[in-house]
């Protein structure tokens, strides 16, 4: 109890709270710009924390982290471009909802879902950090590969209008992930003599090109609408704060399920928000009585994606606090900031520095409240983006995308890649390919390959995938998932045929 109070006393000081507010604003703004990730925002914050007390520094970085996960939803909802990889699934429903004239409601749903997702993940973090951390590190390459096989079945939910084109897009994503040196032995593959391809296709450049450039290009398809000065999003821009809070809370099952998905995925080293939002969305769609409504702008889709990605913030801290293993790049930076202050992060952290650990828990909850307050007061400002005409927003966001792609590695060649992938993305979009499976393929490809090869290097017997209980569990879940998807598609086709027959007669 003493440690808890010491931690709380360090957080609830005017200076710390003021820094946290600034961190939250910085995180929201940085992630709202396509191409700027939460990780980049935290990296930029790290040097500023060196002069602070350890807990104060961590608290500021956590507020950037929590704010960043929320900021990604702004461009996802208003522009249809995921601000960060963790908000890809948010575009599926938040963007149609905003386009339908409810931009304020879409943002508000995302903010509240993020808030509750972070709070739920912190509760899980406090209660279950030690046992979950032990389970997470016991998973071997077999379990990871089986988990990725299960995650790949999400493609079935993201295929859009055509299963075939969705599958092709997913496989193209996996194929793109194989470009560059192989993840085990570093042998070069498919670089065709281009230096820029030697290290592989940078994921963020692919994401910006595929989603942002293609989306912006499709915005100017109707020349008449652009030249008449039409706005990106029309309709009410009312944030509807309290009404939407009730709307989010009226979906407790979706909210808790998505948050737990986020915590569990966040707790697995190497996974994170970019996968959690898609898995949470997929699970919400599968459990819904109206799965066909997903993608048309329904609240359930936004709640699932945003609570899922925000919950990874707490989930990622589980292996870090429990075992000293960073679950993601952001957690590694948080660890680095503690190490700068001479605090070694490992299994003894909770025993040697319990005030710091309790302080981190408190900082997570305080960060989510600060994010909520900042979001409520600043969203009206962000919603003004919706009033900007297309002839301004399209070129300006394109320049922001270029800056985001360049700032990643400071390489001009990434810009050429961005242009090329942008054109490919537009062509695929125009031909009716769903782009979400492609992005999923790019994310999961390297994890799948690494773990498949690692598993077979450890034990050449492939039956081990079926004899290890957790691995088998994931594989069974994958089979169930595929059978369910086939059943749903057949059912949908039958319904559509009946509808057309009725319309024809």
């Amino acid at each position: 109890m003493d440690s808890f109070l010491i931690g709380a006393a360090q957080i609830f000081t005017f200076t710390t709270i003021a820094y946290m507010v600034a961190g939250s604003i910085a995180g929201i703004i940085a992630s709202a710009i396509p191409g700027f990730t939460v990780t980049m925002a935290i990296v930029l914050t790290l040097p500023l924390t060196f002069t602070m007390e350890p807990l104060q520094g961590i608290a500021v970085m956590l507020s950037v982290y929590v704010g960043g996960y929320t900021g990604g939803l702004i461009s996802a909802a208003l522009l249809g471009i995921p601000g960060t990889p963790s908000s890809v699934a948010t575009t599926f429903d938040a963007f149609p909802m905003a386009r339908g004239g409810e931009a304020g409601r879409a943002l508000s749903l995302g903010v509240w879902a993020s808030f509750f997702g972070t709070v739920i993940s912190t509760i899980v973090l406090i209660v279950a950090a030690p046992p979950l951390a032990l389970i997470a590190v016991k998973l071997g390459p077999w379990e990871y590969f089986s988990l990725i096989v299960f995650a790949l079945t999400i493609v079935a939910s993201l295929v859009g209008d055509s299963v075939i084109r969705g599958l092709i897009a997913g496989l193209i994503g996996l194929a793109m992930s194989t470009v560059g040196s192989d993840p085990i032995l570093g042998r070069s593959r498919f670089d065709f003599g281009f230096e820029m391809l030697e290290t592989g296709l940078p994921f963020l450049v692919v994401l910006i090109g595929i989603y942002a450039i293609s989306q912006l290009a499709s915005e100017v398809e109707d020349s008449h609408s652009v030249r008449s000065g039409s706005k990106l999003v029309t309709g009410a821009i009312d944030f509807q704060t309290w009404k939407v809070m009730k709307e989010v809370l009226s979906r407790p099952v979706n909210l808790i399920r998505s948050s737990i998905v986020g915590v569990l995925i966040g707790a697995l080293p190497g996974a994170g928000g970019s996968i959690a939002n898609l898995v949470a969305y997929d699970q919400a769609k599968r459990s819904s009585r109206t799965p066909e409504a997903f993608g048309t702008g329904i609240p359930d889709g936004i709640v699932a994606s945003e609570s899922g990605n925000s919950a990874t913030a707490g989930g990622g801290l589980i292996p870090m606090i429990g075992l000293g293993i960073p679950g993601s790049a952001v957690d590694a930076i948080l660890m680095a900031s503690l190490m700068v202050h001479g605090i070694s992060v490992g299994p003894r952290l909770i025993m040697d520095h319990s005030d710091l650990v309790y302080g981190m828990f408190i900082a997570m909850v305080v960060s989510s409240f600060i994010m909520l307050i900042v979001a409520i007061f600043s969203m009206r400002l962000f919603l003004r983006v919706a009033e900007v005409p297309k002839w301004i927003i399209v070129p300006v966001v394109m320049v922001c995308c270029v800056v985001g792609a360049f700032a990643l590695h400071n390489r001009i060649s990434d810009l050429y890649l961005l242009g090329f992938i942008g054109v490919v993305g537009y062509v695929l979009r125009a031909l009716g390919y769903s782009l979400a499976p492609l992005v999923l393929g790019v994310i999961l490809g390297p994890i799948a390959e690494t773990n498949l090869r690692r598993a077979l290097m450890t034990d050449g017997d492939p039956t081990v995938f079926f004899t290890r209980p957790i691995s088998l569990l994931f594989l069974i879940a994958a089979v169930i998932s595929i059978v369910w998807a086939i059943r749903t598609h057949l059912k949908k086709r039958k319904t559509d045929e009946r509808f057309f027959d009725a319309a024809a007669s």
Partner: protein
Amino acid sequence: MSQSDLDEELALEAGEIARLVSYILFLLIASGMFFAAGDIPTSRFERLGAGAFPQFVFAGIVLICAIAIVLTVPKISAAAYGQFFRFAAKWARKCYLVFLCLAALGLYLVAMPWLGFSLASLIFLFGMQLALLPRSVKSIIIAAIIAVVFSYGLNLLFAEVFTVFLPKGVL
């Protein structure tokens, strides 16, 4: 069936032809890549080599594209093939701003190493806005201000606040 209905159906079939072309293209590329992956040397330290995973993926693309081709061909009438270029040209005319936009982006990216971020962005932003904006003096003034803010202003912000230095150019 009226002429407009017929045209609409042919336009849909033209879309199917475009998709068919994409399936064939992906099938050919994936076949080539499958064999290229087979040439990647294997290792004595592991059961699967660096080329094995890509081969699984490319084989998957070949298989799915083959299925897609088989399913798509019967959907397209013979008349649609003859009309394909007419509909493709019609679509291209309708979407001419997209081509303009992507071409301008390409030029902007190619010119950036020479002109530097600020100047290249200024020209790109002002040019693009001029191409897209409704013609009025007020719009042109706004476009000029936006161009300056998001080129020189953005460069200044990144250099001074984030210490991220955008391309300077050689001119």
